[in-house]
């Protein structure tokens, strides 16, 4: 397979990489950039463990070729905390015990960040729908819902069903 040189902007840093042209973004992140927070699981974009943000939108990095994201901005879970401080969504997941094995957690946190980018004050139905592409086999969904509710600008329980 031909190799290509691509420039990626990941977590605020630019990387010039020579990679096989058919390589998926998930593999580039994990193998070339050593960012292990995006994880492989289903390989077909159904489970969400490989979720990263592409220009602020949540995408499955197992379904994206690395050469497709040339010049775009990628945020992985490793890029979410700032100056050693956890992102508020990360902190909310801890405060509400919103994980167990945590294999799915980076994907869920990034999807939550994308949700809050798109919806200022999502109701429960919107949260459930938006996060339905991120599976949690341990079944922490109730705690995740509580964590996401707590991230709304006004944690208004009247949105709860």
């Amino acid at each position: 397979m031909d190799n290509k040189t691509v420039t990626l902007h990941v977590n605020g840093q630019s990387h010039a990489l020579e990679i096989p042209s058919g390589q998926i973004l998930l593999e580039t992140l994990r193998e070339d950039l050593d960012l292990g927070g995006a994880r492989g699981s289903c390989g077909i974009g159904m489970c969400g463990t490989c979720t990263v943000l592409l220009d602020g939108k949540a995408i499955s990095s197992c379904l994206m070729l690395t050469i497709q994201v040339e010049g775009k901005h990628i945020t992985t879970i490793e890029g979410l905390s700032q100056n050693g401080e956890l992102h508020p969504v990360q902190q909310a997941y801890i405060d509400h015990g919103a994980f167990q094995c945590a294999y799915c957690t980076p994907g869920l946190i990034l999807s939550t960040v994308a949700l809050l980018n798109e919806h200022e004050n999502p109701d429960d139905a919107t949260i459930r729908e938006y996060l339905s592409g991120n599976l949690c086999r341990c079944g922490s969904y109730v705690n995740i819902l509580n964590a996401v509710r707590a991230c709304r600008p006004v944690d208004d329980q009247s949105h709860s069903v």
Partner: protein
Amino acid sequence: MAIGEPVPMLDSVARVSGTVPYAANLKLPDMLVGKVFRSSAPHALITRLDVSAAEQLPGVAAIVTAADFTGEDTPNLHFGSTIQDQPIIADDRVRFIGEPVALIAAESDGIADQAMDLIEMEYKELSAIFDAEAAMLPNAPTLHETFPQNIMRHAKLRHGDIEAGFAVADEIIEEIFTSPVAQQASLEPQVAIAQWKDNKLTIWTGSQSPYTVRSVLASIFGLEPETVRIIVPPLGGGFGGKGNIRTQPMAAALAWKVRGRPVKLVMTRAEEFLTVTKHAAKIKIKSGVKLDGTFTARKVTVYWNSGAYASSSAHLVQAGMLRTIGPYRIPAVHVDSYGIYTNLPIAAAYRGAMSSQGVFAHESHMDTIAHRLGVDPLELRKKNLLRTDNTFATGEPLSDVYFLDCLQAVVDGVGWHEPLPRRNGSVKKHGRGTAVMMKNTIANSSSECRIKLDSDGHVVVYISTVEMGQGGHTAMAQIAAEALGMPIEALSVSGPDTAKTPPDAQTAASRNTYMMGNAVLDAAASLRKQLAVAAAPILECPLEDLSVADGYVLVTSQPRERISYSEVLRTNNVTALTAMGKYTTNVGDLDPETGQGISTTHWHQGAGACEVEVDTKTGKVTVLRYHSAAFAGRVVNPMLAGLQNDGNVIYGLGAALLEEVAIDTGQITNPNFSDYMLPSFLDIPVELKNVSLEVEGSSFYGIGEMTLPPVAPAIANAIYDAVGVRIRDLPLTAERVLRAIQERTDHGQ
């Protein structure tokens, strides 16, 4: 105190930062990629296997076939923790589609894939059998010559006079229930990384059973167990699928042939379905009852489809025998529980192991009986549920029995006696259902731990408890913190690493909190004693007048006369104190002919109740409300306990409504998350609540599975309540419900 606090998991920051060091993430210098070449026939003799072209491909480091296991000083090809029937890779015969035949170690994924294409294999097909009951028939093909009728295990229970019991019954009700093959589906796949160096084997693997893996690998390679080291980082889910032995022998065989470089073997999602599954089960259950709702007899026959090799089935079949009876007072009980070989992938533990299938049967059956007698299913359960000092069908007396409390909690939760919404003319009907479970734990096992206290006041708890998301390490730290009177921040947990952490049977069957928790208490008591002995000369006080509490050794009558743990160590000029702890249970030997004896030290107890909405035009079932309860004894961490209870219900919803491994003449046709659906955010009830029942003075019992097995029967019973159809086959799909509604309409009922 540390016990009872909702302490966040010790490594919470790593869990939300993507830095948990799963085996899937491990990279070692010079690491090779492992791949498995598999059978495409369900049952066949291998007539030709040619790997020469693959071996010559540049970048291929090694190919392992059964030929590597012939001759002197070669490892054993076959292994098994109970029956040694499983080859690491097929010998001259394959017994299921997807069985490993050859192993490849290569410089990259791509090269390994090319090597796969260069392997040539020819077969002579044999007739195959996929249905467990049919595999027992005289003319069925035989998988293993030592088990001509394919019955790997027949566990029996004979209690009371069964004929007399049925003779005095007013009603005899007989039903058949089935559960399909399912898959544990941890999001982290099965991973094993093996390295063979200086005649020592090291494996990093996501396993629930590090010491079982060690002993089996030592036996395969003829090594002393101490020369095999198993390191288990946190797991991305286990659910039973990572118990026993899975891919570790294959990774080890590659490392053995490569000599020196590590080899990483990761299953693809499709390969996960070939590696381990849940037992499909067919359960025939027959009960005799009096018109007043008293039971007179129960006869159960269970056919467990165990797949091509025994793995853990041989003992699971006995556990499953006990778990299909139900928590009721029944004077005469007969059970025949068969573990049967078929040409399917191996079946093994699946969260709620060997319980979900049986509880679906006996709890659905309970409602059928109640409707036949014209009584409320809740009242029939209350009348017959086992109570403390009752005797179970094994003949053993029961203690710590809280089935009624669990049941009451869940039916109160869903408002059992409140009117249901009845919307005239609506195609959507509502119904409620409930179910109770009982499950023995592993009765003869042992857990050990070591606690080290440093002179700087830091404590390390060394355990082989596997952290797979349940928070087992956090719970053990809480127990140790309370027992030592120290803040949890002063503790860390290390392990499993068989070179550093003492033996533990396995992290399975909800045994860890109780077994390892008591081992931790034992070690902590020993450490406190050492501290007191070391402090006595300093405090100039006899040992019996000293207490140990809150990080100090103190004179009991004059608490101000005290010395901190660190000072005790420093004054004695020691850098650390170490204490060992152990907890062992020694029951479980049931009579092989009658199943009578003491089967367990503790009964796991749980219940569930729900309200569903059934769309009579489509058959779609929506679970609107679900309440679960587990008997916990004493809760170590309410946040983690709640996650276990809810997680169980959600896991159970998958098996109840969605999950079935589809198999066409031995070929799995849906080994992916597009066609094999797991519960998502949109599948969970809007109202999902749980309760962990606590009892003053009780021990901390495991709660890893209790709320799972009631899910499917509670929903099936609610469907019956809503639309009057009884679904006896899982999963409870819209198609099945709609067909049953149509058939009932066709029959004019």
